């Protein structure tokens, strides 16, 4: 019976083999860069061709030994998504579930939750998590999607380069250089569940060396539904504006400055007063390349966020961050090292029975890292060794090393293996949170001795860059976790106060497969499948009230297929199909989602879009949080006009 288990794998390999074989014969004729095609392209179209074919892996990551998927600007545009979290659904190595009109649960390699805390998200080098719970407020991460160059989604630990909280994955959102966003761009959309969305951006050149863009965008988003079928009333709106400047200071120096200002009113509880979520941020970056082989990057940012929950509880966070990275190539060594300094002023206004103590806390984070990529055999075998030493205000020093081996048996073919250790350091909710029954009696009480959660990850992967028209990435992982957060009851008979402990351990394993292909010059196809199996248990001595299950609710299987077809008459037809398996606890039924977009370029610079989302069912639930109540995401349709001048 044992060998029977291998059957599906064998079938998959066979299928893969035949797909590739037939592909190679097929693509001889339909090579995307035929003479005929290339000479018919305009200057602007030529500038949009990716150099590394369908693989889309940015240069530096092409041969890096890790599981990375890239959502390109074209993928975003073709899919018809209208927000960042919707765009993240396009990466099959992420678990993405819409909870209500403004809240999302997003994670990688499991542990998904509204308060998911093992994923690091960066926007142009700026970390966007809140130290309140080490997660991301997705309702405050807004963009003109047109200005996003690409989103790199790395599943697996990235602690060595990116630091604590890059435990299960890293999302890197990279906006376009203002050099590439010259001119006027305007978009306006309205639909059945989208009362309105409008954006305006203007980009230009101050002189031959300085380019810039300024933008404003706003939307009002519709409501989700209660399970009873009536509208939940969690509709909300947001406004945002900002700028980016890029300056080529010299042939060796590039400087960029960008800033954003936003004000949103999400209302997940559908209450009389909505939440106020506003903030501003400013990032300055200086890139210096002393030569092809050495250089540094210096980055500083300021980020201020204010969240008024409308019930008296407010959170105010000011982050100051300074980051320095240096790279040097010496013979067979590519050495990267750097240091980071971060100061976070975290200030809350507590309620009488709901409090973070102390209300004001200054969190310091400083770290240094060193990584050496050693070319053991020229263009054949690379060994990467690196480690980060990071100090945080709660647990002191944490050590996050990793080792990666990449073997290139043929050009653009990489087989890699990695072992890494990553830490999830405590956030304020872990250490400083108190929920009281009366002013003298706690139900939940902070735990000063809570430690960091630890992951040791073993990964194995294969990536093929540009085999004709197909690129493949296959990775498998085995993650061993310890000291995962648990809820420990207090002394009997009442069992209070409950405190957070490190009472859960266990392992997860899974496979991530991603494929990109261009079967014909007019057809682009991309897909991915992720399998995830979790085995978490309560440690000896722990009495975790949730039996080890509170931290995550993940599907075992998920599949995403995105297709874009160029039709005659300047028409485009894009579809995204996704299958998300059952969530175990609380149970959410599996579903298949289908989004479709028809784009029509009616004039050189004007495009009409008609997009239908969640076509297959009237409504479905994607995630059930502990609060507020479960919501259903409706089928919806919207129209959008886009103009470029």
């Amino acid at each position, binding site marked *: 019976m044992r060998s029977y288990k291998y059957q599906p794998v064998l079938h998959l390999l066979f299928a893969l083999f035949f797909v590739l074989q037939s592909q190679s014969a097929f693509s001889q004729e339909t090579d995307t860069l035929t003479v005929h095609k290339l000479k018919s392209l305009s200057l602007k179209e030529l500038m949009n061709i990716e150099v590394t074919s369908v693989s889309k*892996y940015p240069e530096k990551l092409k041969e890096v030994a890790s599981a990375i998927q890239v959502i390109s600007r074209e993928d975003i545009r073709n899919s018809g998504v209208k927000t960042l979290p919707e765009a993240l659904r396009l990466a099959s190595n992420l678990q993405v579930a819409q909870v209500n009109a403004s809240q999302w649960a997003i994670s990688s390699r499991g542990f998904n939750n509204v308060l998911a805390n093992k994923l690091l998200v960066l926007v142009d080098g700026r970390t966007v998590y809140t130290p309140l719970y080490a997660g991301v407020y997705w309702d405050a991460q807004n963009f003109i999607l047109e200005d996003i*160059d690409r989103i790199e989604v790395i599943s697996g630990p990235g602690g060595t380069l990116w630091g604590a909280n890059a435990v299960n994955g890293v999302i890197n959102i990279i906006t376009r250089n203002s050099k590439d966003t010259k001119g006027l761009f305007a978009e306006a959309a309205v639909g059945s569940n989208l009362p309105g969305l409008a954006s305006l951006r203007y980009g230009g050149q101050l002189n031959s060396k300085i380019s810039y863009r300024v933008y404003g965008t706003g939307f009002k988003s519709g409501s989700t539904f209660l399970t009873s079928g009536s509208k939940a009333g969690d509709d909300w709106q947001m406004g945002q504006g900002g700028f980016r400047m890029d300056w080529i200071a010299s042939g060796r120096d590039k400087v960029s400055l960008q800033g954003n200002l936003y004000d949103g009113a999400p209302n997940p509880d559908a209450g009389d007063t909505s939440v106020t979520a506003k903030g501003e941020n400013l990032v300055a970056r200086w890139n210096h390349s002393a030569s092809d082989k050495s250089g540094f990057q210096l980055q500083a940012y300021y980020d201020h966020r204010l969240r008024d929950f409308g019930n008296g509880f407010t959170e105010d966070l000011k982050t100051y961050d300074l980051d320095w990275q240096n790279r040097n190539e010496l013979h067979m060594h590519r050495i990267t090292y750097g240091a980071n300094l971060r100061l976070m002023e975290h200030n809350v206004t507590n309620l009488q029975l709901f409090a973070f103590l102390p209300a004001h806390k200054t969190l310091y984070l400083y770290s240094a890292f060193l990584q050496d990529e050693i070319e053991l055999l020229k263009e054949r075998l690379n060994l990467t060794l690196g480690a980060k030493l990071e100090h945080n205000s709660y647990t002191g020093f944490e050590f996050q090393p990793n080792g990666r081996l990449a073997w290139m048996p043929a050009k653009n073919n990489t087989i890699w293996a990695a072992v890494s250790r990553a830490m999830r350091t405590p956030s304020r909710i872990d250490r400083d949170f108190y929920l009281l029954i009366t002013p003298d009696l706690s139900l939940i009480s902070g735990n000063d001795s809570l430690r960091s959660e630890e992951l040791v990850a073993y990964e194995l992967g294969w990536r093929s860059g540009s085999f004709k028209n197909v690129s493949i990435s296959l990775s498998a992982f085995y993650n061993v976790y310890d000291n995962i957060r648990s809820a420990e009851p207090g002394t009997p008979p009442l069992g209070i106060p409950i405190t957070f402990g490190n009472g859960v351990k266990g392992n997860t394993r899974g496979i991530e497969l991603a494929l990109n292909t261009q079967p014909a010059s007019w057809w682009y196809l991309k897909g991915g499948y992720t399998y995830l199996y979790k085995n978490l248990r309560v440690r000896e001595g722990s009495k975790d009230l949730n039996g080890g299950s509170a931290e995550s609710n993940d599907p075992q299987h998920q599949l995403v297929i995105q297709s874009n077809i160029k039709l005659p008459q300047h028409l485009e037809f894009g579809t995204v199909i996704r299958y998300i398996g059952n969530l175990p606890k609380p149970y959410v039924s599996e579903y298949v989602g289908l989004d479709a977009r028809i784009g029509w370029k009616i004039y050189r610079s004007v495009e009409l879009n008609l997009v239908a989302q969640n076509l297959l069912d009237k409504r479905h639930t994607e995630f059930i949080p502990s609060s507020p109540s479960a919501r259903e995401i409706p089928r919806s349709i919207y129209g959008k006009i886009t103009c470029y001048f």
Partner: protein
Amino acid sequence: MIHPDIKILLLVLGLFSSGFQTNADREAKIKAAFLFNFTQFVQWPEDALSNQQEPLVIGVLGENPFGDYLKDIVAGEKVNGHPLVINYYRNAPEINTCHILFINLHESGELREVFAHLKSKGILTVGDGDNFIKAGGMVRFFKRDNKIRMEINAHITKAAGLIVSSKLLQVADVVSNKK
């Protein structure tokens, strides 16, 4: 049970190592298409293209990175009535009539020598080395965000009597280091 798996894996790998369109090829093709495109966005001085029958010459100096691709692209094409011709040169003194020259040399010294030779010939010089503009070249290809971008030295094109269309300047990074 292990053996068949390995066999298939080897087969797949073997397949991969044989049939590649390398990224380098792809990059060269895109650059070739740019060279062809430049013919429409540059105006040469009167004496450089005197009569209608005279061909517009795209040249390659140094090792030819394009294979037959450049020839295939221009085959049968005309720009403002001028037929397009591809010439390959081994050294600068060989160059007589030429309008666009792709220079596949990367030594600063070599490049300066070539530019000294081409001075006042009204040739649009194109290259992709880091030092190309610094050494006195006009258009440099480079990669940004996995796409081909251009740097144009407006000062030098102007000095050579070339008029570069604003459409081309708009999509390029314009630098102007006077030397």
